[in-house]
């Protein structure tokens, strides 16, 4: 540690707020991976791993990850729900690590940097269904 300026003080603050977003509950979005026994059996754990690796890689620590019990839709597991403040939750079913990577990029990398994308949600649409719970 060495002496800091008021400006560096602000930077530390932003860095920590970003890093600890999950603790303060003020993230950019919340991604829930449903993990009950059936979810785990169908590979939810790998989906979670892939998500965590991406978050670390893209330093998107303000994307909050939660694990939740299975929601009783075992045949469609692994299930992932994405919730952004003020928006309807979007649910993805039959996920695998590859799909997860794709969904993550689509939501948190591509759209955030405002790159024009064709067909917006592309392939992942096949796994998309409107949230009913």
């Amino acid at each position, binding site marked *: 540690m060495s002496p*800091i300026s008021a400006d560096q003080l602000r930077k530390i603050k932003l860095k920590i707020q970003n890093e600890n977003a999950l603790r303060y509950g003020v993230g950019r979005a919340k991604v829930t991976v449903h993990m009950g026994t059936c979810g785990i059996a169908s590979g939810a754990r790998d989906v979670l791993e892939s998500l965590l*690796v991406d978050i670390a890689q893209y330093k998107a620590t303000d994307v909050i990850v939660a694990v939740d*019990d299975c929601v009783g839709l075992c045949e469609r597991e692994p299930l992932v729900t994405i919730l952004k403040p003020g928006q309807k939750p979007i649910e993805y079913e039959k996920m695998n690590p590859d799909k997860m990577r794709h969904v993550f990029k689509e939501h948190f990398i591509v759209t955030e940097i405002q790159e024009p994308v064709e067909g917006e949600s592309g392939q992942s649409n096949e796994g998309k269904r409107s949230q009913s719970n």
Partner: protein
Amino acid sequence: MKAVRSHLLLCGGTGCRASGGMTLKDILEAELEKRGLSDEMKIVVTGCNGFCALGPILVVQPDDVIYVSLKPKDIPELVSEHFIKGRIVKRLLYKHPVTKQEIPTMQQIPFFAQQELRVLRNRGLIDPEKIDEYIGRDGYSALAKALAEMTPDQIIDEVEKSGLRGRGGGGFLTARKWRTTRSAPGAVRYVICNGDEGDPGAFMDRSVMEGDPHSVIEGMIIGAYAIGASKGYIYVRMEYPLAVKNLAKALTDARAYGLLGDNILGSGFSFDIEINRGGGAFICGESSALMQSIMGKAGEPRAKYIHTSEKGLWDMPTNLNNVETWANVPLIINHGSAWFASIGTKGSTGTKVFSLVGGVNNVGLVEVPMGITLREIIYDIGGGIKDDKKFKAVQTGGPSGGCIPAEHLDTPVDFDELTKLGSMMGSGGMIVMDEDTCMVDVARYFINFLVDESCGKCTPCREGLRHFLTILTRITEGQGQEGDVELLEEIGDGMIWGSLCALGGSAPNPVMSTIKYFRDEYDAHIRDKKCPARVCTKLITFSIDPETCIACGKCKKVCPVNCITGAKKVPHVIDESICIRCRACYEVCPTDAVKIR
């Protein structure tokens, strides 16, 4: 590399440590390792959550779930069920004392829901040993603002407008003290933080020093800048090793960042702080005694015509404030005086931290807006009286505070209202007493504490307390005489007016307030030789009601002096001449056949 998906906020306050919190940490670490979760779940040891009776406490984020009273054997289940499968482990949640319902989140637990966290703003949220985490919660931004944008006078004006009054006892206006110290002539000026917290059972200052040491330090630096002080001391009670450790680490880190030392944040202002371990006596918390103690002399109060703000440490202008007072300062600078004064009462703005203990369902540390009623604190936050008993009195203000009866439960809690009732705010102790409390015995209990804690320097306090104790003891032993109450009042009056310091001046409170509100109990002891609450052992007798006795023999087994006789199917009998009134039989009797009269 994997991102961390969960923070496990393990309470590392003294209370939770005492109930095994750190062992739990090791076990949790090992279990996470075993299940391959070490790099996605992070354990953060935080400061005290204030709910110490239910420790160790673990809050799981981002799920916002709070687990209480955790045992090592609960850990494997917690990890596999909650952390891996996302299933909340219900049996480890807090249960509502009345409805018995499990409550998963902190915000839904009434104890937490009604609180207004300002001083305790970072409670359970940061690792007190990491300065960056404090900064992440707006820490030191008030200092940066004060140094860059405000003159010392502007700071004092802002504190004045906020109405901040000292949280250490007397409720002195903080800005007024600062201004006097600032304008007093002297080659150097000092600021001191009073972390002596001598009130038995109180732990609000400890929790702040342990759990958020930087909030106190930041307040002190701002205050020192406003006052023009170059040196600060934090006087910490002897019995608070963790507070000393965390403060010391915080000072080192603040120094490394240049937030203490020479030319703070490039402002040209220089200031540093040293920790001083307390002398160990209650009286050392008194301002002039505390300063004597810092100077290495006996911790005794000094004559009051010399103001410490003009001649304090080494005869230099010195400003002393309580831990909580200091911790409020950054908030005032950051959010402004209007925000600060937006809650509270006219004469007492902001919040106050209380340590709520005694006969309530939820004991712990609570921060509430000034002006909240005693009833709200005791019934809403405290969850009412334990075991459905009746409320009798609440003692506020530490050992020399007074007892307030049920008829005043709707009094708004602030400095002036409590004083009007014959008690005081003190530093925020709050002991709730139920119907089974003898008020004469309570008065005797506090006087017995004070008699050893008075420094003994001045006549009224030393001798007054001595005779208080003698008289109260004889009353509780059935030897009270007609006129004893009046004598107590006369002595108390002499102590209030004649004592050198506020210890002697306030020591009569427990006696005077119980006489004022519970005079009938004194009379019952003195005239009828009866203790209405059935507490004073010399005034009660134990007997077994033959109608209700089922002759189970339980009482016979527990009696330590073997004074209970009776055979199978024959109602048991207590021999009063041998009985030592230990209550053992009373506690075990399954049919409540043991009667105390």
